[in-house]
């Protein structure tokens, strides 16, 4: 086989699976304030999509599609968004939830006790979930890419001095 990566069947299935995995991750992030889940969990799920691509296609093509510079930048951006939301709360204190119960964006109050829940609630929590989700997804993909890439390079050189 001239190309790196696995067979065509595996690659096609991996490509097909990537979309549902990403959607599932986004769902977990978006519903973090209603159901079990949140930014970290959803971000990890999204990163598994990258792991799948790495296995199926090999690191070279994945690196071409998502560069490490891009991942590093999105990681930083996610964190900056996170800390910026925290700073915005400084009207009262750092990390105060200034959007909750305030009407407007994400500001709906919810009835007390068991309820079906609405996604338009919980103030800054969903925003922070998204920020953290972006950060975690790109951080984990970056780590996978780094370790995978260095291992692949190692393989070509013949595995160090055995």
């Amino acid at each position, binding site marked *: 086989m001239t190309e790196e990566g696995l067979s065509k069947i595996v690659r096609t299935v991996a490509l097909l699976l990537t979309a549902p995995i990403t959607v599932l991750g986004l769902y977990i992030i978006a519903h973090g304030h209603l*159901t*079990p889940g949140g930014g970290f969990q959803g971000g990890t799920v999204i990163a598994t999509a990258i792991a799948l691509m790495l296995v199926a296609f090999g690191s070279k093509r994945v690196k071409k599609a998502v560069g490490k510079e891009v991942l590093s930048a999105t990681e930083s951006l996610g964190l900056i968004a996170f800390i910026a939301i925290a700073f915005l709360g400084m009207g009262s204190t750092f990390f105060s939830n200034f959007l909750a119960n305030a009407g407007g964006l994400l500001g709906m109050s919810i009835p007390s006790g*068991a*309820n*079906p*829940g609405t996604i338009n609630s919980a103030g800054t929590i969903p925003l922070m979930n998204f920020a953290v989700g972006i950060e*975690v997804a790109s951080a984990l993909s970056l*780590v996978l890419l780094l*370790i995978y890439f260095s291992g692949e390079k190692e393989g070509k050189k013949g595995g*160090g001095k055995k």
Partner: protein
Amino acid sequence: MIAVLSQNLPFVVSALLLLIGMYALLFKSNLIKMAIGLSVMGSAVNLFLIALGYRQDSIAPIFTNAPLVGAVNAAEMAMPVPQALTLTSIVISLAVTALMLSLAVLTFRHTGTLDAEKAGRLKG
């Protein structure tokens, strides 16, 4: 003794898991095995924290479609804080593992071995 043991089994198990991890860290010289040991220790502490917050016959601290009647009584739900602490510590142990594996890869790159005793150059 047996009664106490069976009552506190989750705590005892997590303590023992911690020690298994510690064993791997102390007695194994393979860097990957040491990383596994640390990861096991991290999981043990996570298990310990999550076990601390469980209340008998309680539900998860989530109100969405919860099986509750009327206003909530604090004893009906498991404690949310230990669960949040566990989330935090999971991510931290993940970060430690990632960094440790990166260092192991680099050590292999430099010395051609994963054995801590063969790769070791510093006397400490």
